[in-house]
């Protein structure tokens, strides 16, 4: 009798643990949808690179294009540097306007966090259509689940692990050269990638400051690729557009099943408890 009782208790404990485990996974599953794209500086005409170290990042264009600006990601912040504003108290960018840039962290402090990521915006050289672009093997029509595969868009370069290809980034992009800012035209900067904000600098010129992911951008360049946030869903002309999303619909039923099981387990345990109490009284 006593042995049976212990065995019974063990089984019940297991059931309870199972219920709690289900609960844990269910809550976890409920959270995963919330995750979004953290890289606000990423855009179709922007190359994302990892720095050489926490303090130094370098990049040289493969095709002789000119680097217009660099977006430095450090911690949760983004900072954009152009020829008009190539340094601040934390970072300095050398080589803007040329085909090679060097980003240096000037100070190691809480305010000036390590360089975690660089986005380089560049203007392509005048390129005539280059028909001999053979699709590189990495760009398969059925991409893998892995995050954006990284392939070089320029034909003469062997696949270097540096540039992310989206279907819109054709090897002959029609992005018009982004001139050095000389007037504060927010749209001009918003047309590039990451919600940049044109600001008046103390010296009277115009520059670009922090990437502001909440800035709403109007794209003046019809050939520029829309950012993921602005991308319409669905069809082409004549359709209801304007809807945006960064995720698919939640089409799973695992949560429903898990929480139903949790409820059933709860009911079972309660009933069992009541029955045991009755038996004890008897």
């Amino acid at each position, binding site marked *: 009798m006593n042995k049976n009782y212990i065995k019974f208790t063990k089984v019940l404990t297991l059931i309870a643990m199972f219920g709690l485990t289900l609960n844990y996974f269910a809550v976890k599953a409920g959270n995963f949808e919330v995750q979004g794209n953290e890289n606000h500086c990423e855009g179709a005409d922007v190359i994302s690179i990892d720095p050489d170290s926490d303090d130094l990042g370098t990049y040289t264009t493969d095709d002789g294009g000119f680097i217009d600006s660099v977006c430095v990601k450090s911690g949760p912040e983004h900072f954009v540097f152009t020829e008009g504003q190539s340094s601040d108290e934390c970072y300095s960018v050398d080589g803007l306007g040329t085909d090679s840039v060097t980003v240096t962290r000037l100070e190691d402090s809480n305010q000036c966090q390590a360089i975690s990521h660089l986005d380089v915006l560049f203007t392509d050289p005048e390129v005539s259509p280059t028909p001999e672009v053979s699709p590189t093997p990495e760009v398969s029509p059925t991409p893998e689940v892995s995050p954006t595969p990284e392939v070089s868009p320029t034909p003469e370069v062997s696949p270097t692990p540096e540039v992310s290809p989206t279907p819109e980034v054709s090897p002959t992009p029609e992005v018009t050269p982004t001139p050095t800012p000389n007037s504060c035209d927010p749209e001009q900067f918003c047309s590039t990638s990451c919600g940049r904000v044109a600001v008046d600098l103390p010296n009277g010129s115009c520059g670009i400051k922090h990437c502001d992911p909440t800035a709403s951008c109007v794209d003046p360049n019809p050939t520029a690729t829309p950012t993921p946030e602005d991308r319409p869903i669905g*069809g082409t002309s004549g359709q209801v557009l304007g*809807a945006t999303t960064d995720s*698919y619909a939640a089409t*799973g039923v695992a*949560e429903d099943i898990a*929480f139903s099981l949790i409820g059933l387990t709860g009911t079972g*345990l309660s009933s069992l408890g009541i029955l*045991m109490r009755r038996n004890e009284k008897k």
Partner: protein
Amino acid sequence: MKRNKINLISKSKIPEALVALGIFLMFISGVYWTLRFRALSLDNELLAQYEQQAEVRPNRPTHIFIEWFIDTPIETQILQDNHWTISEKEASYLDQSARPGEAGNIIIYGHNTRKILGNIRALQGNEEILVTTDDGEEHVYTIETIVEVDPSQTKYLEPTEEETLTLYTCSGFFDKQRFIIQAKPQKL
């Protein structure tokens, strides 16, 4: 003697502990389902608002059929403020997407149950997809792409130049992935 006493006490508390744990689990489940049904009613409100102001366009898909796998009606749903409404009993068609027969991406999605779109995960790639629209016309598509992606990889939802049918449902452990089928109109 002392040990026996402790055992007796702990034994006598077990039924109460079980009842308490059971009530706690039932409470968690109850909260979940309450929120779930509230979300559903909000979805219905959203849809009603959308219907009032939406442009009326013909040729909404009303039924999807893939022999042996899928045979389900389709409800029109929407994407608003980054929130997808979804039918609980049928497949869902995103009203903001293209209509069958016109250029663009036609997006149909649904729960991964056997009665809705769960079986698309068994498709091999040579099946035909038959979509019927509200004018009774039938559109046949041939599968071109089968892929499983993370929910944040939304490139398959992007507009397309050519007519493309995109079907998707959840897959993977605890529905962490999206299983996507893309198909093109069958050439006659």
